[in-house]
């Protein structure tokens, strides 16, 4: 790229770009870069982060259609999902918040995180938190979250924390914030198609506002989880989503489970190994109302992170040995209220 004239017309910006492009081509050529984003982490999907985006993420990449398989979900899982879909369709229409009202939700979560002490030293810790949100149709509202007491998966993790001088892990921290109209992501899903095929087409084209995911079956599973979580949807849309899950190859039946709040539920799961944090993600439904009760994410292989990229004090999710419950969420209540101080 270097020119040979006496006076080089290339600016340093062009010079740096050429270097970066060289590096990019190397990485593309070596297959280091997957053409789709890394697995989204549902817990990171805060309303604020999305507010910053404010728009649909239409990713202009080829869609990988369900990998040639004819099957769809494992038969037992598909049968369950079709039953849940029927239940969903029979539910009364959920009220959507009108002007001046808010969709209120309360949830609990539990996550395992990795703390970077520095010099390659890290430890894992676990922490529950509760979250309440009030989101109005105009994007105004309130987010209230409180973190709970930290525990350590092993005595070694605790010892590392102590040896590092017991750094603050933000226990019992309450964040309470009010938001102006437009500040929170408040999608209007009233017009989503109730026909599963039409809905699937929208999902596969990644054209639903505010919802994005990798262009593969895993991404479709993720998107459906996002659509079911803390949203107000027409019963038939919810039913269509369950029918779509039944068509995703790789979806397995977990069977009866007890959710984080002690409620009985039924669960299906998708295991994604094609990522640097291979995990099994379970969605738990109420078998009678078809509501999403909760979700669990368990690592199925050891997962590490390049700790240098964050520096001392950085905290990462989705990291730990195989079997780590990296995240679970439990959806407790959801409904329409008249002010950001009302609860259900």
């Amino acid at each position, binding site marked *: *790229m*270097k020119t040979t004239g006496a*006076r*080089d017309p*290339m*600016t*340093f*910006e062009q*010079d*740096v*770009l050429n*270097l*970066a*492009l*060289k*590096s*990019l081509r190397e*990485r*593309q050529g070596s297959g*280091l*870069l*997957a*053409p*789709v*984003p*890394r697995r*989204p*982490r549902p817990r*990171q*999907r*805060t309303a*604020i*982060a*999305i507010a*910053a*985006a404010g*728009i649909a*993420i*239409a*990713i*202009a*990449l080829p869609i990988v259609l369900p990998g040639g398989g004819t099957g769809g979900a494992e038969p037992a899982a598909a049968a369950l999902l079709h039953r849940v879909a029927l239940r969903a369709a029979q539910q009364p229409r959920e009220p959507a918040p009108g002007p001046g009202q808010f969709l209120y939700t309360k949830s609990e979560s539990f996550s395992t995180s990795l703390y970077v002490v520095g010099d390659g030293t890290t430890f894992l810790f676990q922490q529950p938190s509760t979250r309440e949100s009030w989101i109005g149709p105009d994007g105004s509202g309130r987010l209230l*979250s409180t*973190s709970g007491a930290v525990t350590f998966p092993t005595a070694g993790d605790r010892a590392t924390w102590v040896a590092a001088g017991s750094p*603050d892990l*933000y226990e019992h*921290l309450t*964040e309470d914030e009010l938001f102006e109209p437009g500040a929170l992501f408040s999608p209007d899903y009233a017009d989503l198609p109730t026909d599963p095929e039409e809905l699937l087409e929208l999902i596969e084209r990644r054209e639903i506002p505010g*919802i*994005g*995911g990798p262009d593969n079956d895993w991404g479709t599973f993720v998107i459906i989880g996002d659509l079911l979580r803390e949203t107000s949807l027409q019963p038939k849309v919810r039913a269509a989503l369950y029918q779509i899950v039944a068509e995703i190859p790789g979806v397995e039946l977990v069977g009866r489970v007890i959710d984080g709040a002690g409620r009985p539920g039924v669960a299906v799961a998708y295991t994604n190994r094609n990522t640097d944090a291979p995990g099994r993600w379970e969605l738990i439904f109420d078998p009678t109302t078809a509501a999403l009760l909760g979700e669990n994410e368990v690592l199925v292989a050891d997962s590490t992170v390049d700790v*240098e*990229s*964050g*520096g*001392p*004090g*950085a*905290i*990462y999710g989705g990291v730990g040995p195989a079997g780590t419950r990296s995240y679970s969420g439990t959806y407790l209540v959801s409904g329409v209220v008249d002010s950001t101080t009302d609860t259900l």
Partner: protein
Amino acid sequence: MTDPRTDRELLVASRVDTGAFEELYRRQVGATIRFAARRAERPSDVVDLVAAVWLEVVASLDRYEPHRGDALPWILGIAANLCAVDRRRRAREREVVRRLGGRRALDDDDFERLERAIDAHAVAPALRRGLRELPPAERGVAELVLLEGLTPAQAAEALGIRAAAIRMRLARARRKLRSVAAESTPAARSVKEVSR
């Protein structure tokens, strides 16, 4: 003809499309130059840092999660981490630059533009000193919010830290910087305003 894609679409598409990367670079290289000019004293340091940032952007492309935040905060987060973290990584970037054939020397025009950029974006010495004295974790947060104008939520995304954690760090950083803010330079005033 302007590319209608958003920055985040370009960043995602860059994995497979060098044209998308070029367009994103064209749009945001200025922001990274400003970032570097605030932290460097010599033109060649600015270019070193800008090159390191964009090489790191390339190396981290598959870690970008578009639903988590916009492209520029993510890029500035990489820049902040490069500054905060360590010299080892910077050394590695220089190694990459060498392997890729090296950079050419700065010509007079570049040199002068960069000197001007450094002057224009100079941070008040007192504030710079104050920032330098913060522990690395707090410094990264404080710089992104106070100097680059990111919101705390964007800074949290950029640095891969939870919003709760970033608020604590920012609060601590502001307390430490408050004495600096008493000196009433424009940059220091902005600290006061933000810290209210």
